[in-house]
């Protein structure tokens, strides 16, 4: 990012992207549909489960593959878990950018650690899980996973209260974040923003509610929104979303079929009918879409990724012009940017 400053005041911002470009979209064209899953891990590496889900759902949509019930519920539970983990990381690093010297971040890492442990339990990995498969999951979850998720869901509200006690009404934090880095509702819609960034601007839009995929239509949850679209609202919407995710997890755990297949009968090498498909889900950072063009072979002809962060960040220059350097850092932190997703 190239900044032009007048003293402390920002007069121009020019984002320079491309330093993390790995050519994932091109690489995908030479890989089979199953081999692409680990590539999707490397998009938003703080929430790679939802990337897997989004990609698998796009492939399933084109192939007409029916995912077993148990796998759908487990996908929901795991996605919401990852959403909480991603939001914890987002809020923690946002507060760190605010200058809070790691304390909130470390408190949030305490809970994120539990989520990572649970992911380790099911997939053997802590960051890039490669857990989902086209048609379901790669393997069934162990019994202790369900127990520890239940424990986590029961404990988490208390920890969220703790975060609120720690920072929510801190005078300096309010002064720094309220009214700073405003993204107006109209601009947010115009650029096609999504996720907590859009909802903080006051737009009630969530793929899970508006275009329910998987089994999301069976759960009762709310879509929290902010009013002003400033840094504080983006922070607060994420906190509220964590509570809603916990609600979904609780219901999904109650409805989860105790037994059953976890993956549809999909061979390792399979072809999709020629055609195009766009599948999208509500990833932690927003509307994550996969656009697949198939020519009937075992690899996609073209794979395009619609990354929420890149879209959200397009209005960034307008949001920070005229503000101070410190506000730029804060606004950037509140957008929850993961560079793996901006440069695919």
């Amino acid at each position, binding site marked *: 990012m190239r900044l032009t400053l007048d003293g402390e005041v920002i007069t121009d911002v020019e984002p320079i992207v491309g330093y993390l470009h790995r050519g994932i979209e091109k690489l995908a064209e030479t890989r089979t549909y199953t081999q692409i899953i680990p590539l999707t891990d490397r998009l938003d590496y703080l929430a790679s489960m939802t990337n897997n889900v989004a990609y698998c759902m796009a492939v399933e949509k084109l192939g007409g593959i029916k995912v077993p019930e148990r796998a759908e519920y487990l996908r929901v539970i795991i996605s919401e878990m990852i959403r909480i983990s991603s939001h914890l990381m987002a809020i923690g690093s946002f507060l760190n950018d605010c200058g*809070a010297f790691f304390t909130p971040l470390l408190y949030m890492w305490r809970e994120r650690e539990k989520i990572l442990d649970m992911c380790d339990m099911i997939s053997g990995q802590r960051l890039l899980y490669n857990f989902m498969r086209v048609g379901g999951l790669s393997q069934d979850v162990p019994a202790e996973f369900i127990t520890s998720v239940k424990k986590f869901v029961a404990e988490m509200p208390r920890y969220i209260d703790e975060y609120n006690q720690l920072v929510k009404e801190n005078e300096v934090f309010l*002064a720094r974040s309220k009214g700073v880095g405003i993204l107006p509702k109209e601009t947010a819609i115009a650029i096609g923003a999504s996720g907590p960034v859009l909802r903080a601007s006051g737009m009630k839009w969530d793929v899970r509610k508006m275009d329910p995929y998987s089994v999301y239509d069976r759960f009762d949850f709310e879509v929290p929104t902010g009013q002003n679209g400033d840094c504080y609202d983006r922070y607060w919407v994420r906190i509220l979303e964590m509570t809603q995710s916990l609600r979904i997890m609780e219901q999904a755990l109650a409805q989860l079929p105790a037994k059953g297949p976890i993956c549809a009968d999909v061979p390792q090498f399979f072809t999709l009918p020629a055609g195009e498909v766009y599948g999208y889900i509500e990833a932690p950072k927003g509307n994550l879409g996969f656009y697949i063009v198939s020519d009937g072979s075992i690899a996609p002809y073209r794979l395009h990724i619609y990354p929420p962060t890149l879209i959200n960040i397009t209005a960034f220059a307008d949001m920070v012009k005229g*503000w101070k350097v410190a506000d730029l850092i804060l606004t950037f932190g509140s957008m929850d940017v993961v560079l793996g997703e901006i440069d695919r």
Partner: protein
Amino acid sequence: MTLLDQFQLFLKAQGWPEWAYYTVPALAGIVVIIGVVLAAVIVYIWWERRFVARIQIRLGPNRCGPEGIFQPIATAVKILLKEDIVPANADKVLHFIAPIVVFVPILMIFAVVPFDRGAILVDLNVGIVYVIAISSISVIGIFTASWASGNKYSFISGLRSISQMVSYEIPVVLSIVGVVLMTGSFSMIKIVEAQTVPFILLQPLGFLLFFMGALAEMNRSPFDLLEADSEIVAGYHLEYSGMKFAMFYLGEYGMALAYSAVITTVFLSGWQGPFLPGVIWFLVKVMLVFSVIVWIRSMMPRMRVDQLMSFAWKAMLPMALINLLVIAVEVLVIPSLQWLMLIINFGLAAVLILLFSRIFTLGGGRVEV
């Protein structure tokens, strides 16, 4: 009579030549002070790291020696062994001088700090003025460092340092004047002896203003804009490594130690306290003040530069002036009724803080470009 005077008399009685019984005690005192300060800084670094770790639900360094007490020494050795890098477009001479200019004044502050009854290097009759004057010199060092580095992040930090430190000097001085009015002397020893009741109780508002100003002066959170790591990387000491960086590092903690000592002396009745020897009381109080500083650091987000300035000029300065006025009237009208002063000043502090929290708001800050 201070310990140094006694030492001088002792040497005189031993029949030492005249030049020796002036220079030897002074040099001995200086060596002792430097030794004590450096040792204290090492303990401080250890304490901060462990204490912050406790707040942040982690363990902190605990491998090196019992409870990790030798970790700062290991860190110091590591830093000293590093290569000393001078950037190509740095001003070589200023780049070399700046760390010294930052560090030396901090040691000089300790010359007038009474560690115990009589344990003071020089009992200057303008002690507190000397402290304020000397501590301001560090700003020049910091600005020199930022300018000489030839780095844009450092330079932003340098610009911030000048405005921040000069602004916060004023409420600091005004809150000290309140103490001086009650004491009737600038001497540090007189100030301690005047505190039958610690001044933190008699002048709560003055204490708070001084404490906040001191936080800004020593670049501690929430006023640590000079080295805001998320904004300007490390600020003025970005281009420093090795020994020179160690000087800044020691300087930062030395400054915290110096201000803790000054706060202890001026507001917490210095070495005075029941039962225990004075020096123990002094160290306990200094540690307490430092722990509060560390606590604030680990809990507070950073302020923005314009909020920082408006806080100094629009909130702290008027409060300091009102506080000074009230104390001046009290000293004139009811000089002996300390309990009445205590009640009035606590009331004043409560009213002013409530009032200013209503009428003074931070935030906003966008400029049309």
